């Protein structure tokens, strides 16, 4: 494969050389300034990138069959010349490293030229820049590749990708796990050696990897409305908070939207990894709430989550019912010594503004909270209007972030140094989520986001799967699909209730068992 590519590159080089020598006749081609920036795909103009990012390959969307790009580093001392006949610009990794290495805190400038064979002119576009931040991003991303489908799934893979190169490896593949659903990977403090993932169906269990060893547990206890679903590791590593959700789907009739995912019942629990005990996050409030998407504060003293009043509708949840459900961001004080919770406090009142909040994520310095804000419900991935908002936890001030688009911008995670955000955006085609990275300088200063670069810049056009739950990881995970397949042989250990007094209300039990459609079950079970 590489050999073929090398031969192709040599041929391309010589044809470029010929073309270039053709252009460079005695008088030379006439240079025409277009006085505009070139169209490039993906749009990497003026983005801010980490110094350790892989080559930002792109396609030039201009007419022509001879293209030349000159990239010069921030010091002006090093430049790379790339020629292409089809507009695909791929930087050699070594040259790219030199470019970014000399540009931390500065800008790389790209000059683009295009020409049509036989033409005596060479178009010169206005140069564009990429800002190179001084702070690197965590070197790996973990995400799930899955068709953004409805009920059915086929191949599901959890992948790890080095953001410093194009190396992508499969971490878990359901092809050797009886095609069961795999979901909700979560890392403890970005640690590649300590993470968890749910596997459903015949190999069911929550698989907790810790230094190469696996435990297969089921944190579900009887008083939970469903299985353990959305996770968040406590920074101390002893606890994992889960929401327990009875998730349902509704499919829209009109073209503007496709799917609505909502909870019939949901609750927050905390699982003690060491003692194998599951506790309800209970503060004694007897109001019926839907509670989901837990997220620990970096100091582990608060558990943030989304909360909405539970619908009192007796119907099987029509659109009108779901449209009324709006989640706020709340938090509960937590004592790791006793696994005890204090009184719930309101952090962000989204419902008061007719909005609903999801995915609370606190910056590693504890100062900022980034959420996804959308019109209603709990699942912004299918909401076009969903945008990332930031809340200053010191002042309570909030605002919509600059990095949003007209399509869904949602699931987000901070890098370990708090300088980068990775989030899921549907801005490329409105249907499939792609990982975008954005530099976070301060409340007032964020960089233009960019899509995770690929060796083939047309990669995303062809890919039908979505990038689901992108998470930063501080290093390579030294495990592979066969390790998980072997781990399925481990005995499943059922958690014990940490607080035996609690039980699911009769109403909740009834709702949890509601079937809206034939054979319907919670989509995470």
């Amino acid at each position, binding site marked *: 494969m590489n050999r073929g590519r090398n031969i192709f590159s040599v041929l391309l080089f010589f044809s470029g050389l010929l073309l270039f020598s053709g252009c460079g006749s005695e008088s030379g081609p006439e240079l025409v300034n277009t006085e505009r920036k070139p169209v490039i795909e993906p749009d990497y103009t003026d983005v801010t990138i980490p110094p350790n990012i892989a080559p930002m390959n792109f396609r030039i969307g201009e007419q022509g069959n001879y293209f030349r790009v000159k990239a010069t580093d921030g010091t002006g001392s090093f430049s790379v010349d790339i020629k292409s006949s089809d507009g695909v610009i791929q930087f050699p990794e070594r040259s790219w490293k030199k470019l970014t290495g000399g540009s931390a805190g500065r800008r790389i400038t790209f000059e683009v030229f295009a020409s049509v064979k036989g033409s005596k002119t060479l178009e010169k576009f206005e140069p564009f820049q990429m800002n190179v931040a001084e702070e690197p991003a965590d070197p790996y991303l973990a995400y799930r590749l899955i068709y953004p489908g409805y009920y059915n799934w086929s191949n599901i893979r959890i992948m790890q990708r080095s953001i410093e190169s194009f190396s992508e490896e499969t971490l878990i593949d359901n092809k050797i796990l009886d095609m069961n659903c795999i979901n909700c990977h979560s890392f403890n403090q970005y640690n590649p050696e300590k993470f968890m993932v749910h596997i459903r169906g015949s190999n069911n269990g929550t698989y907790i990897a810790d230094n190469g060893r696996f435990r297969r547990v089921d944190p579900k206890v009887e008083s939970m409305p469903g299985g353990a679903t959305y996770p968040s590791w406590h920074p101390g590593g002893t606890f994992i908070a889960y929401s327990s959700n009875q998730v349902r789907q509704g499919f829209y009739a009109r073209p503007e939207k*496709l799917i609505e995912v909502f909870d019939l019942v949901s609750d927050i629990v905390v699982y003690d990894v060491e003692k194998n005990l599951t506790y309800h996050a209970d503060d004694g409030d007897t109001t019926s709430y839907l509670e989901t998407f837990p997220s620990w504060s970096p100091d582990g003293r608060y558990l943030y989550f989304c909360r909405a009043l539970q619908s009192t509708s007796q119907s099987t949840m029509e659109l009108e019912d779901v449209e009324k459900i709006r989640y706020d961001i709340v938090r509960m004080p937590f004592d790791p010594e006793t696994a005890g919770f204090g009184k719930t406090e309101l952090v962000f009142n989204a419902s008061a503004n007719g909005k609903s909040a999801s995915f609370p994520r606190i910056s590693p310095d504890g100062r900022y909270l980034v959420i996804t804000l959308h019109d209603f419900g709990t699942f912004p991935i299918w909401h076009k209007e969903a945008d990332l908002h930031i809340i200053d936890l010191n002042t309570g001030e909030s605002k919509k972030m600059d990095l949003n688009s007209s399509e869904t911008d949602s699931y987000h995670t901070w890098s370990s140094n708090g300088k980068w955000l990775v989030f899921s955006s549907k801005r490329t085609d*409105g249907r499939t989520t792609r990982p975008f990275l954005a530099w976070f300088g301060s409340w007032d200063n964020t960089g233009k986001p960019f899509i995770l670069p690929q060796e083939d810049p047309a990669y995303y056009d062809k890919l039908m799967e979505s990038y689901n739950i992108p998470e930063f990881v501080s290093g390579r995970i030294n495990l592979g699909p066969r390790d998980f397949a072997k781990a399925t042989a481990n005995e499943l250990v059922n958690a014990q209730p940490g607080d035996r007094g609690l039980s699911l209300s009769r109403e909740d039990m009834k709702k949890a068992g509601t079937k809206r459609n*034939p054979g319907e079950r919670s989509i995470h079970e």
Partner: protein
Amino acid sequence: MAQVKKPNIKKGSPIKSADYSWYILAGFFVIAFVYFLVPGNYVLFFQEQQSLFVYTRDYILDFFLKPGSVADLAAKFLTQFYISSFAGSLILAVVLSMPGVLMYYVNRRLIPGSGLAGLLAVIPSCLLLIMQTHYYHLMLYNVGFVIVIAFFLIIISQETIRNKYIALAFFPLVFYVTGAFALVFIGMFIVYCLVYLKGRHRFLLPLMLAGLTGVSILLFDNLLLLQSIKQLFLYPLPFINDQLHKVIFYALIAYMVLYPALARMAGSVRLVRPGRRIAAGIVIPALVLCAAVIVLVSAYNSQTARVINLEKMIFAEKYDEAVEYHEKKPTENLIGQYFYNIALSSTGQLCDRLFHGRQDFGTSSLFLPWSSEHINWGAWSFYSIGLINEAQRWAYEEMVVYGRRPQNMKLLVKSSLINGDYILTRKYAGILKKSLFYRKWAISYEKLAGDSLAVKSDPALGRKMSILPGKDFFVFLESPEGNLPRLVNQNPGNREAFEYLMAWLLLNKDVEMLVGNISLMKDMGYTSIPRHIEEAILIYYNSQGRLPDMGGLELSSETRLRFDQYFSAFMTGRQNPATLEGKMREQFGNTFWYYFHFK
């Protein structure tokens, strides 16, 4: 030097027999070609629709990820040509003849000049031909056997034992290419070694093969490719849920594995008399071919053919043809009747001709239930009534479960155009454009992306746009008929949904509910009442003694007259209950009245 048992050649032995193998194989080829060109052509259409072969690096590289997939790639490449009846039949007949041709060369090595060579050679092809009559018997299965026989031939053709060892060393490659079909080779080769080789090589070669098999399994399972050990031993063997297919498949495997032994036995048969030579060389193989033809005829399922032919017409949007076909050659199958109803709806005749074709499944033939069994057809009824999101969902889910197929990709292109998702239109059309035979179609639809006026001007797409739901709601999945009143109320121009609703009520014999909707018709643009609705009105009139509110529309005198005839025929026929149903069916089988009283 090699220690290979020499064929037993004596005076008057088979070596001097005339070889009729080519005539037999030519006869087989003609039978296979004609069968798949004419009566069995539906098999080609069905299989062509099972996958979309695209000429992209990613698509092709995917076939190199597990043992057996390379053979699948070759098979899918050939299957794309099934789009042409002639080319498809030709290719299929050639591939089905290949085992016979290869066996002919095998026989030249094992039993040169044997009068039974033609007979032995043609049997695997005949068995495959019978298996091929099942529409789920894919080209892959034929290719698997062909490669295995070819490899066997290559090995036994090596003159020296050293070369046999060298050739056998390529077994891991064959295992990789054919997957579990390589197990058939293992059986064949072991029997060959035991029967034809002498000395230590008759054991050493099988031992080497066992070693190579172990190495292959180790390599494929642990190092190179990601698949379960079960898949390694089963993929891509056919396990079709059909008794005849299963029996023949196992018979074929047994035949292949024992072939060297059978050949040895056949080689020892002396055919001295010319009559016996002709009988063995021509008559018996011809009888085998005749038997194959008899099995072909008896295994031919006209009902399956009708359903798939209807599907073909619907996919090609030849709705009038589909209506005529079902009325002339009624299908007794749910899917077939479902397609008939879609054809009626697409031609605006649902409530005029519903009972002109067989309706054995009541309302079930209007919407298929949500299941993986129906996932590749269910989209069409939703597409018909303008519930485009739901049609797109079914097409998308089919793509997720079964992969890209021409129809699901086409439906995704059309539905995204109607919904105004032009980026997705280009994405889906871009995939179709990479195929050989859907490229033109994709380009023509891709051109519309971004131009909503052009989409509106397209008669079919424009119509769908005009009947989109007016207001949003969650689609009813369990009871799809629940969507119909909403579609009608929100968009009175959606006659398709209205007629589906009325057809539902007709098939459900819910006359009360049906007549309650008639007052809406005039405002929906109806100038006359569809025939079956008129028939229902007269049933209502007959029981209630009054006509319902028809919103200003009137019953046709023709229907009134027919009702009078029906009524008097019914009254007369009632004298003899045993013959009543038959007589009424003969005269009024295509009316709602008959359906109401006798179904």
